């Protein structure tokens, strides 16, 4: 068992809107609402606590609007939380609260420690650059300054993600959906991130393509022991990849546990509904 947590989220909170005195009572899983009916404020994440351990895959499930993508964006440092902490344990054991980083520090941390794969490739890739350029960007940000070596590393990453290195200079628009997800994965892995964030990566793909992408992620996890945070509304995807799973509803975590336990012995009424509604 690997020692300590790598990332620890403490009482993280994010809302969109002005807020009012009764907001909290009128939203949350018991009310079945995220949006306050009085002032219209959306409470995307409320009192979210979780720990991510080195080398594990943690699943986050919940229906659309449950706050799981907002949570992921905050951990990716792309969205600033209203309150709470995101602690990260550096390789030297030092703890850093990522919510206190300024823009510049946050971007640097993002470039060196985090990788992300989005459901929609346009969000993760620059469609005007070549596929190789998109992967190389991460290397360039990590101060790789030798064109030849960048090309070699980019080809390696394409091989690893089962893309043909011959297509390094092709435009992303000539790639299929499953291939674009693999380009995103190659790009995310380029700078050896410690945490890979996956936001509905297989949603919208054909079932067989979905299986290939999942198998790729699984093998990367086995060989590189990379820590992953997997957001999905598809319980099957989470079952295949994540050992532990968190269930979110209306901005709150309603249940957390071993993935098979969540799926076969769900405790919370909402989780029981979610599991029983799965195909």
């Amino acid at each position: 068992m690997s020692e300590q947590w790598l990332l620890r989220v403490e009482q993280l909170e994010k809302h969109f809107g002005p807020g009012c005195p009764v907001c909290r009572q009128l939203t949350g899983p018991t009310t079945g609402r995220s949006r306050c009916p009085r002032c219209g404020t959306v409470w995307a994440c409320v009192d979210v606590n979780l720990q991510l351990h080195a080398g594990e895959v943690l699943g986050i499930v919940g229906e659309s609007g449950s706050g799981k993508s907002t949570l992921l964006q905050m951990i990716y440092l792309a969205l600033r939380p209203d309150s709470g902490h995101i602690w990260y344990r550096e390789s030297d054991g030092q703890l850093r609260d990522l919510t206190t980083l300024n823009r510049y520090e946050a971007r640097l941390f993002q470039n060196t420690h985090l990788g992300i794969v989005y459901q929609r490739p346009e969000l993760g890739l620059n469609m005007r650059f070549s596929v190789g350029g998109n992967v190389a960007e991460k290397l360039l940000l990590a101060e790789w300054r030798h064109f030849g070596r960048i090309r070699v590393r980019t080809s390696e990453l394409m091989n690893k993600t089962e893309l043909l290195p011959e297509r390094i200079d092709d435009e992303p628009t000539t790639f299929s959906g499953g291939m674009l997800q693999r380009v995103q994965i190659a790009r995310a892995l380029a700078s050896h991130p410690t945490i890979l964030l996956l936001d509905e990566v297989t949603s919208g793909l054909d079932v067989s393509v979905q299986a290939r992408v999942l198998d790729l992620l699984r093998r990367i996890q086995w060989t590189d022991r990379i820590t992953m945070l997997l957001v999905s509304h598809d319980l099957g995807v989470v079952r295949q990849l994540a050992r532990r799973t968190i269930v979110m509803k209306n901005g709150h975590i309603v249940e957390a546990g071993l993935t098979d336990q969540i799926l076969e012995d769900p405790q919370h009424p909402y989780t029981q509904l979610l599991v029983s509604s799965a195909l």
Partner: protein
Amino acid sequence: MNYLLEVKNLYKSFTLHLIDGRTITPVCDVSFSVAAGEHLLIHGRSGMGKTSILKCIYRTYVPTSGTIWFQSHQFGRIDLSRADERIIIDLREREIGFCSQFLRVLPRVSALDTICEPLYRQGLDRTAAQEIGREWLRRLGIAAELWQASPMTFSGGEQQRINLGRAFIARPRLLLLDEPTASLDETTKQVVINMIRAAQREGTAIISVSHDLTGLGVYADRQWTFPSR
């Protein structure tokens, strides 16, 4: 006697929130122990909660009350019903194996890779893992031309063998087998029984749930009839 696993006064009830919060209790005050190298066979009428016991030990189900003491290599004597999830994950990887009745795998992944999965998880490199994987496929009598095909295209019997292989390949100290010989023909059943006995000789404790009293039951060290209510 030094037991590998001791189940004491185990209860498991389910609260069905979707059906008026009704509670059902399939496992009621169950106690038993298993020593290293021992094979305990649990049998009884279907739907009585035999599988629930296995799932409680594996922590797929959260036990409602009672204790499940396990003598772990890494963590010493611990109560599986209350142990930290991280410890459970680690035990599942290295010490406790579970074989369900159904093979649940990713489509398009070859039989060889499927059976090697537990080894990949342990961090074994691909070639070494596949060496072991091929050996197991051979023992299980899976024809070599099927090794690169997906088990999802296999017959029920072949799928079950792959499923068993996945449980055995990691050499756990405790193996939980749910109906291991169902849907197998006589020859294959014998292969599986031999595998179980070989594992026992290596000191693996086995708890199986089965109706197969004439086949598997003959070889079990102890049989325990699950009480029907």
